[in-house]
C-alpha cells in the first residue's frame, strides 16, 4: 500500500517520537521512585532505630532497678541477719510482693558456700568457688550473668552483688526470671514480622527469637561488636533481606537486635514501584499509540502534498511540452508554408496557361487539367493542416466576454445534430439551471466542445449515446462540464498521450491529431482544466472545468 520511502519515513517518525517521549518518562519514573525509596527507607530505618533504642533503655532500666534493689538490700542488711534462713525468706517474700522478677535469693560466703537460700530449688550447701561468675563478682562487686541452664537445667541468669562487711566479703545472689526478661525484649516485636532478641559476646542467643533459632543456640547473625551507638543496616541472610537495628546495653555486654522483614515494612515502596512500572507501561502504550497516530497523520499530509505536487508537475510538464511543441509546430509550418505558396502559384500559373488554345488541343489536355486540379486540392488540404497547426501554436489573447456555457453547448450540439441523427446517436443533456455566467471566450470554448463532441461521435461510430451535463461547484468557484459517451473507450496507452499534438488514432487524412491538443491549450489559457477518464468497453468521459469569473 505504502511505498518503501514512506514506510521508512513512518518508522523514523515513530522511532524519534518514541525515543524523545520515552526518555523523559523513564527519567521521571526512575527519579520519582528513587527519591521515594530513599526517603521511605530512611524513615523505616529511623523507626527501627528508635524502636531498638527505646527497648534497650527499657531493658537497661529494668536491669538497673534489679541491681539497685539487690545493692540496697545488701548494704542495709548485715551478713549475720541474712544468714538466718527465716529472715532471708521474709525479705524475699517482701521483694516478691512488689515484683516477680526474682525467682530466688541466696547468700554466699567468701569461700563460695551457699549459706542461705530462699526459693523453689534446693540450692543450699552448693559450693560456687569454682564457678566463673563467683570470681567475677568477687572482682567487680556487681555481676550479671549470661543466660545459662546451670544446676537446675532451666534457662535463667543471675545477678550478684558483693558486700564487704568488716574483714570479710559476702555475696547476695538472685536469679532473674527469664520470662519477664523475654517479655521485655519481645515488646519490641511490634510488627507482623518484627523480631527482637538478645545475643551475648559469643553470639549466643539470650532470648528466644520469634521466628528462627532457639535459646542458647548460636545466632547466625549479626556478629557481636561492642559499640556505644545504635547501628541500622540492611543484611542479606538466610536467603532473605533483613533490616537490622543493633544496640548494646549499658549494664551487660549484650546486644539487642531488632529485625524487620523488608517485604513487610517496605510494602508501600513495592506498591509504589508497581505503580511506577504500571504508569510507565501505560505511558509507553500511550506514546506508542500517539507516535503511530502522529506518523500516520503526518504521512497522510505528506502523501497528499506529494500527490498534489505530482499532479502539478504533470500539468507543468504538459504545459511546457505544449509550449515546446507549439514552437516547433510554428517553425515547421512556416518552412512548409512558403514552398506550399510557391506550388500553389505555380499550379495557378500552369492552369492559366492551359487556357491557351494550342495546349487545349493536345490530346492529354484533360489529363493535365485533372492533375492540376488534384495538385491544387492537395495543396489546399496541406494548407488547412498548416493553418490548424499555426492555430495551435499561436498565442492569441482570448476575448473577454460574458459567457453562458449552457448556451454554447446547445449551439455546439446544434452543429452536430444532423450528423448524430444520421448515425443514430442520441445526445442527452442535463444542464444545471443555476449555472452562473462567467467571463471567457465563447468561440474558443465552442471549439473545445466541438472537438470533444466530434471525437465522441467518431468513437461511437453508430448507435450510441452521448450524455452532457453541466454543474457548478460553488466551493471551488468552478463550472464543470462532463461529456460522456458509451463508445469503445480509450486504452490506457492512448489515454496518456491523448492531449499530445499530432497524436491521432484516426485513419490518415481524417484527423490531424491537433483537436484535443488545441482544446487543451485553449482550456488552459482560459484558466480551466480538462481531464479524461475512460474504461475500455465502457466509453469515455471528458471533464472540462472553467473558473467562474465575475466582471
Amino acid at each position, binding site marked *: 500500500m505504502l511505498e518503501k520511502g514512506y514506510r521508512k519515513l513512518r518508522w523514523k517518525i515513530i522511532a524519534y517520537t518514541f525515543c524523545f517521549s520515552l526518555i523523559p518518562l523513564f527519567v521521571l519514573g526512575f527519579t520519582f521512585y528513587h527519591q521515594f525509596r530513599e526517603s521511605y527507607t530512611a524513615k523505616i530505618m529511623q523507626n527501627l532505630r528508635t524502636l531498638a533504642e527505646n527497648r534497650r533503655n527499657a531493658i537497661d532500666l529494668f536491669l538497673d532497678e534489679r541491681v539497685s534493689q539487690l545493692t540496697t538490700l545488701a548494704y542495709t542488711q548485715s551478713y549475720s541477719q541474712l544468714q538466718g534462713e527465716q529472715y532471708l525468706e521474709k525479705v524475699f517474700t517482701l521483694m516478691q510482693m512488689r515484683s516477680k522478677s526474682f525467682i530466688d535469693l541466696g547468700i554466699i560466703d567468701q569461700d563460695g558456700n551457699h549459706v542461705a537460700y530462699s526459693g523453689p530449688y534446693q540450692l543450699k550447701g552448693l559450693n560456687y568457688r569454682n564457678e566463673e561468675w563467683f570470681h567475677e563478682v568477687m572482682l567487680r562487686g556487681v555481676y550479671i550473668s549470661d543466660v545459662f541452664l546451670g544446676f537446675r537445667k532451666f534457662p535463667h541468669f543471675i545477678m550478684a552483688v558483693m558486700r564487704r562487711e568488716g574483714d570479710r566479703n559476702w555475696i547476695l545472689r538472685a536469679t532473674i526470671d527469664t520470662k519477664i526478661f523475654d517479655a521485655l525484649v519481645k515488646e519490641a516485636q511490634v510488627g507482623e514480622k518484627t523480631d527482637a532478641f538478645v545475643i551475648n559476646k559469643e553470639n549466643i542467643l539470650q532470648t528466644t527469637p520469634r521466628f528462627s533459632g532457639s535459646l542458647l543456640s548460636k545466632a547466625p547473625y549479626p556478629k557481636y561488636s561492642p559499640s556505644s551507638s545504635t547501628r541500622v543496616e540492611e543484611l542479606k541472610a538466610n536467603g532473605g533481606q533483613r533490616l537490622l537495628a543493633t544496640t548494646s546495653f549499658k549494664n551487660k555486654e549484650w546486644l539487642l537486635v531488632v529485625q524487620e522483614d523488608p517485604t513487610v515494612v517496605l510494602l508501600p515502596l513495592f506498591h509504589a514501584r508497581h505503580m511506577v512500572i504500571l504508569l510507565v507501561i501505560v505511558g509507553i502504550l500511550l506514546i506508542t499509540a500517539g507516535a503511530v497516530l502522529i506518523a500516520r497523520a503526518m504521512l497522510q499530509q505528506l502523501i497528499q502534498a506529494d500527490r498534489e505536487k505530482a499532479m502539478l508537475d504533470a500539468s507543468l510538464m504538459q504545459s511546457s511540452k505544449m509550449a515546446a511543441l507549439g514552437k516547433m509546430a510554428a517553425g515547421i509550418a*512556416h518552412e512548409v508554408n*512558403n514552398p506550399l505558396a510557391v506550388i*500553389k502559384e505555380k499550379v*495557378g*500559373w500552369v492552369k492559366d496557361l492551359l487556357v491557351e488554345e494550342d495546349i487545349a488541343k493536345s490530346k492529354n489536355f484533360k489529363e493535365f487539367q485533372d492533375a492540376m486540379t488534384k495538385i491544387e486540392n492537395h495543396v489546399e488540404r496541406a494548407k488547412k493542416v498548416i*493553418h490548424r497547426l499555426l492555430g495551435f501554436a*499561436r498565442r492569441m489573447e482570448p476575448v473577454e466576454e460574458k459567457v453562458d456555457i449552457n448556451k454554447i453547448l446547445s449551439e455546439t450540439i446544434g452543429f452536430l445534430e444532423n450528423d448524430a441523427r444520421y448515425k443514430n446517436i442520441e445526445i442527452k443533456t442535463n444542464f444545471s439551471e443555476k449555472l452562473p455566467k462567467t467571463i471567457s471566450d465563447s468561440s474558443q470554448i465552442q471549439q473545445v466542445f466541438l472537438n470533444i463532441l466530434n471525437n465522441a461521435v467518431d468513437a461511437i461510430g453508430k448507435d450510441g449515446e452521448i450524455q452532457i451535463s453541466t454543474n457548478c461547484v460553488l466551493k471551488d468557484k468552478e463550472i464543470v462540464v462532463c461529456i460522456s459517451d458509451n463508445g469503445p473507450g480509450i486504452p490506457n496507452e492512448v489515454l496518456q498521450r491523448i492531449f499530445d499534438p499530432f497524436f491521432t488514432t484516426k485513419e490518415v487524412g481524417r484527423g490531424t491529431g491537433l483537436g484535443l491538443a488545441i482544446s487543451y491549450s485553449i482550456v488552459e489559457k482560459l484558466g480551466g482544466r480538462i481531464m479524461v477518464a475512460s474504461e475500455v468497453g465502457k466509453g469515455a468521459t471528458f471533464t472540462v472545468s472553467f473558473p467562474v469569473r465575475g466582471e
Partner: protein
Amino acid sequence: MENLRVLVVDDEADFLETIVMRLQRRKIDASGVDDGKKALEIVENERFDVVVLDVLMPGMDGIETLKLLKKRKPFIEVIILTGHGSVESGLQGMQFGAFDYIMKPADLDELLEKIQQAYERKRIHEEKHGLSGE
C-alpha cells in the same frame, strides 16, 4: 483596372515571379521586388497604387517596410501577406495602416478582390484630399 499599378514584395523568388506573371496575365500592371529596401526605393521613382507586402523577409521585415512606406507615401494601400496562421501579424499590420491582410498560400481570386478594394479606397481617399495620382 485601367491605371492600377501593383507592387509585390516577397523574398521568395519563385513565388514573386509567378504571382507577378499571373497578375500581369489578368491585365494588372504588376512589378515585383525581393526586399523592403528595394520596395522603398522603387516607390520613390514610380507610382504604385497597391503594395502586396510579405511579413517575414530577411533584412527589413514587412512591418518595418510598411511603417516607412506609409510615412513616405500615405496614400499607397498595403495588403499584408502573412505566412503566420495567426491573425496577429495581420492585425499588427493593420494597426500600422495596412488595408487588409491575407494568409499564405493565398487564393489569387481573393487577392485580386482585396487589391480591387484597396484601389477603390485609395481613389476615394485621394478624391477627398483633392489629389489624383502623382
